C-alpha cells in the first residue's frame, strides 16, 4: 500500500493553490505538510481523502482493491462530535459507520475515563480533540490524514498523539499531517505556498 501524488494542481475559489505537486509515501512514512495559512494544506488533505476534485494531476492509493474511501481516516479541524452524545456513543457510532471494531480500552488510552459518560457539549476543546483522535483507533485504516491534529492538545495530549502516530507507522501505516508546529519525526516535509 503506498500513496502516489503526481503533477497535482488544486484550485479554491478561482485561485490556484499550487500546481505540479508530486510526492509519494511508502508504508511507515510520516509526511508533514507545512506552509503559511491558505497555502493549501487542508485542501491537499481533502483532495487525498477524495472530497475535492484535483484541477490537474492524479492521486493514487495503490495496493488493496477496495474502495479508497475505506482505507482513509480523515481528522479535520472540526471534530465531528454531536453535542448531546457521550464519548462511548461516539465510539460505537464510528466503529459501525467506518466498519471497525471497538477493541480494547480506547477511552482509557486517550485519557478520557473521567468524562466518558458526559455529553460532548461539556468537553473542553482538548478533550473533544482527544475524542476525535479516538476515531483513528476504532477502525483500522492504513492512511491517516490529520489536519492540525495537535491543536488544542496539552503537552500530555501531544505526547499521546505522537505515540499513536508511531504505533501506526510501526504497523505499516501512512501518516500525512498538516502542521504549523513540528510534530513527531516526519520522514519527509512538503512545504506548500513557496
Amino acid at each position, binding site marked *: 500500500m503506498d500513496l502516489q501524488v503526481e503533477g497535482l494542481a488544486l484550485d479554491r475559489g478561482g485561485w490556484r493553490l499550487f500546481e505540479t505537486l508530486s510526492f509519494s509515501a511508502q508504508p511507515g512514512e510520516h509526511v508533514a505538510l507545512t506552509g503559511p495559512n491558505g497555502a493549501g494544506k487542508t485542501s491537499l488533505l481533502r483532495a487525498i481523502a477524495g*472530497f475535492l476534485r484535483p484541477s490537474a494531476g492524479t492521486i493514487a492509493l495503490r495496493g488493496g482493491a477496495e474502495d479508497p474511501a475505506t482505507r482513509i481516516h480523515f481528522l479535520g479541524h472540526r471534530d465531528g462530535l454531536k453535542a*448531546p452524545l457521550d464519548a462511548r456513543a461516539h465510539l460505537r457510532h464510528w466503529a459501525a*459507520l*467506518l*466498519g471497525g471494531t471497538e477493541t480494547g480500552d480506547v477511552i482509557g488510552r486517550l485519557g478520557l475515563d473521567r468524562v466518558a459518560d458526559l455529553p460532548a457539549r461539556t468537553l473542553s476543546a482538548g478533550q473533544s480533540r482527544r475524542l476525535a483522535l479516538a476515531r483513528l483507533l476504532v477502525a483500522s485504516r492504513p492512511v491517516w490524514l490529520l489536519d492540525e491534529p495537535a491543536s488544542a492538545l496539552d503537552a500530555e495530549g501531544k505526547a499521546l498523539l505522537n505515540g499513536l502516530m508511531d504505533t501506526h507507522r510501526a504497523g505499516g501505516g501512512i501518516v500525512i499531517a498538516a502542521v504549523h508546529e513540528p510534530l513527531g519525526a516526519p520522514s519527509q516535509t512538503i512545504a506548500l505556498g513557496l
Partner: protein
Amino acid sequence: MSILRATAAVFRRDLALAWAAGGGAAAPVGFFIGATTLIPLTAGPDRATLALIGAPLLWLTAALAALMVLERLFQADLEDGSLDQLLLSPAPLELLVAAKGAALWVAIGAPLALAAIPMALAMQTPPHAAPVVALGLLVGLAAFIGAGLFGAALAAGVRRGGVLIAILVLPFFAPPIIFGASAASAAVEHGLFTPAFSLLCACALGAVALGPIGAAAALRLHLE
C-alpha cells in the same frame, strides 16, 4: 454486512439525536399540535365548516411542520464535520442519506400521525375516517421528507436556508398534498382504499426512491 451496519448506525444516531435535548423533532410535533388545536377556535364551532376544512388544514400544517426540520438536517453535519465521516464509510452516501431521512420520518411521523387522530376527531371527521387521515399523513410525511432531503442538501451550505428550502421543495409537496387531502375527504365514504390514497403512496415511493440520490449528489457538491 458492513454496509448494513453503517446504515443502521446512522439511522440509530439520528433517531437518538432527534429526540435528545435540542434535537429537531420536538418543534415540528409541537407546532403541529399547537396549530391544529387553534383551527377549530379560529373557524368557529360550525360542524359542517369544520368537517369541510379539517383534513385539508391538517395536511397543510403537517407540510409546514416537515419544512421546519429540514433546514438543520444536513447543515449541522456539514458544520461539525460529521459529513466528512459519512463519505468515508463503506456504505454509499445515498444509503446513509436515506437512513437519515428514515430516522427523521420515524422521529416526527409517528408522533404526528398519532396526534392527528384526536385532531381529526376535533374537526368533526367521523371516527371511522380519522385513522385513515392519520395513516395518510404518515405516508405523506414520507413523501415530504423524501423530496425535502434534496432541498435540504442543496441549501445545507446557506445560512438561514429555510426559505430557500421552502422555495425548492414546495412544488414537490403539491402532489402528495393534493392526493392526501382528497384521500382524507374520500375516506368518509370509501374508507382507506381509494384511488387518491394509491396515488399518494405512489408519490411517497417516488420521493423516497429519488430524494436520497439527489441529496447525495448535492452534498458532494458542498464538500468541493
